[in-house]
């Protein structure tokens, strides 16, 4: 069966520090991968999606970047965090846009 792992679950970082969030998928190959951010009590904002290794598309200009070094690994990064980067970050995968998305448990990021 397919599983998705996302870590860490909680992270507190100072302003200006770097960030690396990792997401891995098991039990499937060549998934479409997504990073979302969810502000408190709000919907999901798509940040990045990837349809293959090294293929990253960004939905909104921002302080973040994403990379896909391996087929089932998706990394969200920042060189210098801003206060506005706080939020709940969710990774998801799907085998196609006509298929359901499967989400990780999320990382709650607080910037101090």
């Amino acid at each position: 069966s397919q599983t998705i792992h996302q870590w860490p679950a909680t992270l507190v970082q100072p302003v200006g520090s770097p960030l690396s969030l990792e997401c891995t998928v098991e039990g499937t190959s060549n998934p479409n991968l997504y990073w979302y951010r969810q502000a408190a009590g709000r919907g999901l904002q798509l940040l990045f999606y990837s349809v293959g290794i090294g293929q990253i598309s960004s939905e909104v200009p921002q302080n973040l970047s994403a990379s896909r070094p391996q087929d089932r690994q998706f990394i969200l990064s920042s060189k210098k965090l801003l206060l506005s980067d706080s939020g709940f970050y969710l990774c998801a995968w799907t085998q196609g846009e006509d298929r359901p998305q499967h989400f990780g448990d999320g990382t709650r990021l607080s910037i101090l």
Partner: protein
Amino acid sequence: SQQGEEDPQALSIQEGENATMNCSYKTSINNLQWYRQNSGRGLVHLILIRSNEREKHSGRLRVTLDTSKKSSSLLITASRAADTASYFCATVSSGGYQKVTFGTGTKLQVIP
């Protein structure tokens, strides 16, 4: 801006009652999906309805889709306290890259 807009934003009902949530969208879609999110967790897929379908059932869930009105509804029958969660619709646009866009969600509280 979010393609899908859920209505109402919040809903509080007694256990055993039915809960209806609505979703409106703006552009042509390939399919529409409903997800559930427990507080602080990732999203869980509930139902996917394709643009050529009008109604779909899964257990106590019933989803309708009216493409002429660009709207969908999710009905949860005989609600339970465990149904307390936020519910999101997600639209997958038709043509070219099938972009997935999440709505702002309906927060459902089922009172035992």
